[in-house]
């Protein structure tokens, strides 16, 4: 279970959000919503442990994530705004590397299969810089296909993807939830979930009361 309580985020000298809390159970997806600049990315980075909350705490399986550090990182898959793809490495190398860095090394077979599944068949050994933006994004998302981490934190996973890829991603998310995974994501796009429960979290001023 992922829990957050009384989170406060300060950026510069202003408070982005205060008193944010939620509880996420296995098989649930938390959709974080909010206008630009409401602190969605900051919240996600906070949940990863990259940003320290000004107040409040985040608990994973009942214990503060600050105390777990590497153990928590091992159970976490984070795909941020930037894809974390090295332009000089091939898609295959990128995928294997990012898995290995999280102690979840995969062999060539798995990597080839994952890249084929996500629609990069035939481009596995091209340097990533010749891939289009959507394709680069897919290299990053291919990690989800081979990931064994229960908690996924995804910042705008649907950006730059075409309709087919979006449908595929929705399916992957659903499958993860069905296996008892946890997902936190932000997106401005509409998406449908075949499995699992959807929760919402609004950041910043609520839409009714105006900006």
């Amino acid at each position, binding site marked *: 279970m992922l829990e957050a309580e009384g989170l406060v985020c300060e950026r510069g000298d202003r408070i982005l959000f205060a008193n944010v809390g939620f509880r996420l159970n296995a098989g649930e997806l938390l959709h974080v919503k909010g206008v630009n600049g409401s602190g969605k990315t900051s919240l996600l*980075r906070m949940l*990863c*442990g*990259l*940003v*320290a909350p000004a107040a409040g705490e985040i608990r994973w399986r009942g214990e503060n994530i600050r105390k777990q*550090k*590497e153990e928590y*990182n*091992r159970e*976490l898959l*984070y795909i*941020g*705004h*930037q*894809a*974390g*793809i*090295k*332009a*000089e*490495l091939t898609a295959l*190398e990128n995928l294997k*590397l*990012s898995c*290995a*860095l*999280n*102690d979840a*090394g995969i062999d060539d077979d798995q990597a080839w299969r994952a890249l084929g599944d996500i629609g990069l068949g035939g481009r596995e050994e091209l340097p990533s810089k010749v891939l289009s933006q959507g394709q680069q994004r897919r290299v990053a998302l291919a990690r989800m296909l081979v990931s064994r981490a229960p908690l996924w934190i995804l910042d705008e996973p649907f950006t730059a993807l075409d309709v087919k890829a979006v449908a595929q991603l929705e399916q992957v998310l659903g499958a993860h939830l069905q296996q008892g995974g946890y997902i936190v994501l932000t997106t401005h796009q509409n998406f449908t979930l075949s499995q699992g429960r959807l929760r919402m979290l609004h950041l910043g001023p609520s839409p009714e009361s105006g900006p």
Partner: protein
Amino acid sequence: MMGVLRWLLWRDLTLAMRRKAEVLTALFFFVIVVSLFPLGVGPEMDTLSEIGPGVLWVAALLASMLSLNRLFADDYADGTLEQLLLSSQPLPMVVLSKVLAHWLVSGFPLVLISPVLGMQLGLDWESLVILVVTLLLGTPVLSLIGAVGAGLTLGVRGGGVLLSLLVLPLYIPVLIFGAGAVEAARSGLGADAHVSLLGAFLVLALLLAPWGGAAALRISLD
């Protein structure tokens, strides 16, 4: 645990090889700066061998700083640094392996070429041996201290110049003992004390700098 760090080292070295230009920049810079001195000071071998140790060390200092601001900057720009912070390894170890890669690419080549340059500056055989030994001990210290500075100036405007302002004063002890050792060898005094102090600096830097670098990265990515 070694698996992850080996992957990281492999990655940094592969990237460096595929971007060849960068590896050679530090090396060429070192060679060019040292070669400029005879042109500026005059070709008298006596003078040159007198200033030789200092010139070589200052040039090595500047050359190893040249690529320092790229140590974390590329990873920061494309988002891989976040992934490294979230890796299952303790961050100081990650920093250490990145520093090792940086040293192999920008420090070690200087050590290899230094005897040639030393000869050009009229250093005798014994001084050349000491030069190589001190550079071998000293340049890793430079990379280690530099990692803290590179972490702190990450994503800061004018980061490159700022980095040198932060880091160069901290390089002074290494410069003093590195150049001092070669100087001592040249004038026939033993360089043992210098060399063992440089060794002590290396141990100290190995113990402290990875933690400093890790703290700096956490601050910069917060």
